[in-house]
């Protein structure tokens, strides 16, 4: 389920009149189509617009949200089922304004407010790619059917009026070309802030907390500012570029959850120059801390090798998983075969060590719980990292209950990560169900963005109306 990253970005908006010369679709050069293909990768279109086991860009991915399930659409150049009959202007309006060719509004699960920073020439390249570089798929995914009032797409017009930011991303001439390119990608196609920037009451990104970390469903998107303690200020340029390309920096951090998706589908395929541009810009993002911080370890250097094997070996599984050594025994039974009996991992890092591992340190326990429950699936050019899940999936290697996950996580925090972190079975249940429950947050997380409050007001109103209708029917 792609929930997390599909949030409307309320950043700058740079649409205006498209270039006056609209090319004929047949005139597109191979170079233009190729550039469009690259931009589609950078924008990660395929992640949402391809169903499970489905054909590329043919839609059909159910995006589950608290207001109902939004099904992604077919954006192949099929005329009856896709966007084959779109003109370039209609395409631009869909991508940057969230308006379909027939004039109806898209739901902001399509991050058009992020893509709105994209320049005309990039929109044209994307159009060329979708018309000529994508194979038409002559089938239609099921329709999105949200409950009233969310099924009234016209509501989005109001939402757009209030919340769409129509400000162009101006070139900052004091900064380098690389930095400006990085900002264009980070705020546009790559839309990093959608996950990494915490949100305020109206679900707006808190600009004063830009990229300083936020809960995203079951996972926690950490502080990626240049803060040396809580952020990634200790990372070199090479560290960050390597991480974006592979999702892995030995003894530091590993991508899982929606970051693994972003790396698999998008970031691992970007040119070195663009990864460097992104890294240059991200590394310049200032810390959001205002008060001086007490010195504390970063989330990258904590924990050490350890085991408690002598405490339970020989007792048998049932006995060994009951007492004080339960967490250690669960570790031995479920984790040690790959991560090592001392949690040391392998030298090549395919199986990471569990110490010096940011998932187990920092001050948020979500990512360790989530990785146990959901596993890791991260595919890059050279590698396919796959950790099986331990939730209740059909392919779970072992099905661990909330109490077992809590015991296991606490053992790992104590021995290999931040020993001050402790979780309860209830905490595990929260992560299992997709993260902390907040209607406002959850609605926003699927892309309703700053419109959440409006939607909630409308929902409340609708609820009263339907209740009164229901009562009348009863009478």
């Amino acid at each position, binding site marked *: 389920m792609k929930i997390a990253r599909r949030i409307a970005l309320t950043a700058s908006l740079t649409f205006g009149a498209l270039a006056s010369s609209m090319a004929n679709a047949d005139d597109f050069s191979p170079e233009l189509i190729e550039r469009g293909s690259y931009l589609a990768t950078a924008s990660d279109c395929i992640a949402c617009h391809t169903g499970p086991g489905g054909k590329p860009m043919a839609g059909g991915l159910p995006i589950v949200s608290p207001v109902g399930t939004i099904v992604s659409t077919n954006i192949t150049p099929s005329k009856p089922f896709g966007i084959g009959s779109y003109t370039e202007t209609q395409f631009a309006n869909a991508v940057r304004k969230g308006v379909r060719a027939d004039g109806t509004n898209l739901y902001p699960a399509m991050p058009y407010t992020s893509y709105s920073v994209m320049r005309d020439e990039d929109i044209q390249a994307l159009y060329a790619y979708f018309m000529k570089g994508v194979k038409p798929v002559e089938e239609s995914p099921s329709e999105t059917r949200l409950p009233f009032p969310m099924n009234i797409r016209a509501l989005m017009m109001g939402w757009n009026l209030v919340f769409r930011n129509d400000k162009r991303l101006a070139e900052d001439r004091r900064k380098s070309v690389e930095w400006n390119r990085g900002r264009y990608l980070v705020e546009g196609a790559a839309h990093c802030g959608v996950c990494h920037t915490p949100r305020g009451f109206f679900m707006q990104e808190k600009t004063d907390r830009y990229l300083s970390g936020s809960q995203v469903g079951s996972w926690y998107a950490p502080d990626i500012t240049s803060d040396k303690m809580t952020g990634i200020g200790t990372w070199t340029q090479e560290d960050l570029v390597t991480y974006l390309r592979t999702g892995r920096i030995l003894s530091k951090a590993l991508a899982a959850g929606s970051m693994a998706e972003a790396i698999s589908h998008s970031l691992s395929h970007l040119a070195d120059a663009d990864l460097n541009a992104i890294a240059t810009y991200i590394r310049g993002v200032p810390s959001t801390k205002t008060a001086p911080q007490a010195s504390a370890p970063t989330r990258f250097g904590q924990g050490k090798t350890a085991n408690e094997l002598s405490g339970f070996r020989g007792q048998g599984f049932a006995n060994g998983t009951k007492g004080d050594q339960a967490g250690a025994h669960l570790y*031995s039974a479920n984790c040690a075969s790959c991560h090592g009996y001392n949690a040391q991992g392998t030298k090549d890092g395919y199986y990471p060590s569990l110490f010096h591992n940011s998932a187990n340190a920092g001050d948020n326990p979500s990512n360790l719980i989530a990785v146990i429950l959901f596993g890791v699936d991260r595919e890059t050019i050279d590698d396919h990292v796959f950790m099986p899940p331990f939730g209740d999936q059909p392919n779970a290697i072992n099905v661990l209950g909330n109490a077992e996950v809590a015991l296991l996580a606490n053992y790992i925090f104590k021995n290999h990560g931040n020993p001050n972190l402790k979780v309860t079975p209830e905490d595990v249940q929260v992560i299992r169900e997709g993260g902390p429950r907040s209607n406002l947050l959850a609605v926003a997380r699927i892309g309703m963005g700053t419109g959440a409050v409006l939607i909630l007001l409308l929902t409340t109103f609708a609820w009263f109306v339907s209740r009164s209708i229901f009562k009348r029917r009863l009478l």
Partner: protein
Amino acid sequence: MASETGAEVVIVGTGVIGAVIAEQLLDEGHSVLMIEAGPRVSRAEIVENFRNVPLGAKGDTSASYPPRPWAPHPVADDKPEDQYLQLTGPDSYAQTFVRYAGGSTWHWAGTCWRLTPDDMRLRSLYGVGRDWPFDYDTLEPFYVRTEHKLGICGPSDPAMQWPARRSAPYPMEALPFSPGEQRFTEVVKTLGYNNIPVAQARNSGIPYDGRPSCCANNNCVPVCPIGAKYDAATSLARLERKGANILVDSVVYKVETNARNKIEAIHYYDQHKQAHRVTGKLFVLACNGLENPKLLLMSADDRNPNGVANSSDQVGRNMMDHPQLTLTVTTREPFWSGVGPVVNSGIIETSQGAFRSEYAGAYFRYNNFGRSRFVTFAALKKGLIGKALDEEIRRMTACTADIVAAHEILPDPNNRLTLSDKKDWLGLPKPAIHYDVGDYVRKSSEVYSLPIGKRIAEAMGAIDLKISPKFSQSKHIMGGTIMGEDPGSSVVDVDCRAHDHENLFIPGGGAMPSTACGNSTITMTALAIKAADAIARQMRGV
């Protein structure tokens, strides 16, 4: 939906055969009830069972799978009077199957040698054994489906494939050789033999079917701790998502026929010795070649006085395996086995040839088990302590190796499973098996396999060679419900359907008319998929 008392298709057994058939029928929309004699145990528990087993007992695969009282299976340390299998004859048909949900693929090595075209025509070509009722090209598409279903890795180079006659590539490339295997391969090359990668149901370098890639625990037997090796237990939760109802701790003891001599129901005891009856349209016995014939013989009724499906009197006869001899070689130079899976390569070309008219073919396997647990006791017996002990364990770990010669065997009706008068915990008869590997195998060991094995040992630079004095079993149960076109001399037809009962299928190793030398599971599974196609046609009324 399947209920606990019936379904369209009732499958007895939850091992690879039952699981593969269940999934295909579920995908076709049929309700499926699976009945398993043993318990359903988590991988975590089995892994920890293994780790808690004392070093000296780790070689016993059953030690990690303690049987439940109601579902006994062979256990190495049982006293003679407690033993489940009542074995007689010159050779011992000792087996290590487990009655657990997921079946004995829990502890298989994953080795997947296909049969060759010749392996299926022994009678025509060499005047021995039985021919299969169809040829290799008929079976081949089912091999391909098996390779994709189980996730079997194998070499893409045709020169390294066994046999090279195949219609589709393996879904994954073969795993690399360990240092010992590389060295062994070079050594046997000087003798003119090709040690080639074994195709194996193990994820090689990539995840497959929602399971992770092999991380080389070298722990395939008795359990893959991470599910990188296919075992049927990895598929059970998926079957349930697709609608299967899986009953565990439920011991089927009777197959009930009706007036038309079709199967009407099966009966099972739960763990509280309560009897239950389950009805269905079609029944599949998927308990492999030992429990299947036992159940058929136990189910004798007025219409079927010799047992269900046994008008031919072949049920329980022709019990086969791959009789094996182990050559333990001590070398001067280190070989170092133990990196990667426990079986990863083999010399299989020695299984073929015109000599098979006189004696059995053989397959030579350099066991890739890490050697430390085998040699530690020998090092201790030498009275060494401290650093000297460590060094001796290290030397013997590096400089010893097991070469296994596995033989084919011919179907012999006198190698026979019958019902013992000894009873198990539920009061059901224990299986009795009389077994003799026969002159065909013995002659091979005398004039063919052991001479080759000794030459290999010599070429390896052996300074010591120990050969197991007796044949042991490879734990590849075959033959007890043998397949053929003639209902008078065989139990099941070309689709593993009982000749005597049109709605009873008995797929698996029991059906195999010849063993060849390679491990049986891939052929058992290919037969199961062939049976599943036939079942699906029959359910559609075609």
